[in-house]
């Protein structure tokens, strides 16, 4: 039987280069999140049940995450702050799965 609750190793990032790169990525992500915020009503009403990805301030839509990622990466290979997500089929109140171990195969 596998133990899924193995230890988590926590480390602070101190490398200035990694932190600088992360900041650039964060800024790109913020631009894409902001784009979706501004176009939320239109995007959410037209693309339920689809995967969307915003990259370079452009919306991509597909049936699978692999497909939409491929479209976004091809169009904006420089944008590593892509915002990828799934739009649920229905607007319903959500009680998120409270994951607990129930069985191991």
């Amino acid at each position, binding site marked *: 039987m*596998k133990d*899924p*609750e*193995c*230890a*988590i*190793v*926590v*480390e*602070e*990032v*101190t490398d200035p280069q*990694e*932190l600088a790169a*992360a*900041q650039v*990525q*964060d800024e790109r*992500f913020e631009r894409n999140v902001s784009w979706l*915020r501004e176009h*939320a009503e239109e995007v*959410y009403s037209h693309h*339920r049940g689809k*995967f969307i990805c915003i990259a370079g301030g452009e919306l991509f839509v597909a049936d*699978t*995450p*692999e497909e939409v*990622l491929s479209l976004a990466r091809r169009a904006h290979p420089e944008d*590593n*702050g*892509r*915002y*990828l*997500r*799934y*739009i*649920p*089929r229905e*607007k*319903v*109140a*959500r*009680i*998120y*799965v*409270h*994951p*607990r*171990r*129930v*069985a*191991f*195969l």
Partner: protein
Amino acid sequence: MYIPGEWHFCDDGTERPVIRGEILALTSTWEKTLFLVDTGADRTVLSADALAALGVPTLPPDQRLGGLGGVVDAVPVGTTIRLPDGQTGKVTFRGQFAAVADPDMLDMSVLGRDITGLFAVIVDRPGDVVCLVGQRHRYAIHTV
């Protein structure tokens, strides 16, 4: 350590507590994603979109996760999650996590108690605060 989050406007018009993070992909690049701060979740679970972005070969499900929506197959993912640190910039969490490939079962990655349990978790809608607080940081409750 202080990990800031935010109230994020979702597709159904509801604002939910999330933390912006990254997951280390097979290509050694960091893939951005949002993590729902779920104080009831036992484990951190990646959603289908996050799993796809990692580019890891899909293994057969080796565990099942249960909740009010029923029981769902999950695949193990050994990776690193990186979150913002208000003090140093970034902090990483390396370990074995789970991922759910069915987007209708989990549309957003969830930060569970394997990570949040290391911190005090503040999810305060009236105060517009979402954050994890630990190590050299503390919080206080004041009467006003």
